[in-house]
């Protein structure tokens, strides 16, 4: 398998899915994913039991296509995982099942699923357009830029995925965004999120 054309095909497929399901912004929600899954006839099973490295699994046999995803995943990783498993349904459905964890992350099929999920949530072209609108040129993207990008677009793509893409597209030097404490930086730039303030104020009230 030649990887580059394969990955390009997957990006085109992700854009096609976005168009078919009327996704117009980089803010893809769990409800959007549920709608897409319903449209594709895939059942989502939120697995209530603790999983260590396993994020999701795709099965397709005589009992129909199903995706198992860890119920405890926070919203953004869950959306990404559902996007990842959707690729297995659309492209790899002839194999009866696939699991997705740290142990097989380097497999081309798994990398392809990551690329598909990223493109499904935030297409590369839109990402580049947003960078241009923010006046960011090649090699100029700093951690603060990523936080600003996420804040302005309200995308549900994680900081880690945005950083990886910024490096891949050479907006940021290689490995320059790997050790960033994203939440801390976002709070420095935009203040604490509302839920944290509420928790604190409730704590004070109960003291």
């Amino acid at each position: 398998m030649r990887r580059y054309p394969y990955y390009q095909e997957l990006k085109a497929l992700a854009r096609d899915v976005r168009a078919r399901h009327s996704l117009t912004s980089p803010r893809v929600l769990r409800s959007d994913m549920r709608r897409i899954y319903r449209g594709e006839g895939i059942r989502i099973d939120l697995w209530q039991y603790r999983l260590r490295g396993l994020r999701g699994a795709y099965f397709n046999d005589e009992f129909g296509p199903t995706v198992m995803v860890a119920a405890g995943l926070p919203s953004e990783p869950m959306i990404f995982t559902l996007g990842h498993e959707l690729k297995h349904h659309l492209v790899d459905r002839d194999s009866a099942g696939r699991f997705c964890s740290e142990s097989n992350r380097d497999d081309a099929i798994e990398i392809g699923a990551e690329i598909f999920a990223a493109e499904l949530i935030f297409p590369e072209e839109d990402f580049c357009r947003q960078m241009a609108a923010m006046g960011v040129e090649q090699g100029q993207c700093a951690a603060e830029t990523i936080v600003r990008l996420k804040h302005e677009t309200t995308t549900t793509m994680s900081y880690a995925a945005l950083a990886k893409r910024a490096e891949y597209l050479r907006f940021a030097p290689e490995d320059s965004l790997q050790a960033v404490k994203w939440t801390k930086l976002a709070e420095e730039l935009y203040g604490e999120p509302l839920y944290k303030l509420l928790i604190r104020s409730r704590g004070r009230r109960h003291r």
Partner: protein
Amino acid sequence: MDLFEHVGARIRELRTKYAGAGISQEALAKAVGVATNTISRWETATYRPTVEDLDKLARFFGISILEFFPREEEKEDSDIAALLRAARKLDPRDLVELRRYAEFRRVRGLYGGELRGKPGRKRKVP
């Protein structure tokens, strides 16, 4: 014996033989988070346990969910077996969960139509 009588008998058998001395309906009910009389009604096939209930019971007894059902002479599910072989690098605890999920969906696929969420009390025809 219909399917639910078989399942009920299996629950009773596993409960009464649990750890050699058996376990009371009350203790089992507490362990799986249901009312005591629910266990009794599952055992007498008055109520039908859901796939989720059976999964909880299977975890409690440390068995596969498939063991509640009559053993069928079916072909080994080679696709699932292949997946589980490919998943050998997984954390062993994740591998257990992956297998449980594969079995859970198999039971749901085979018996899901009969294993409804709502309890189905048997009514005597007057």
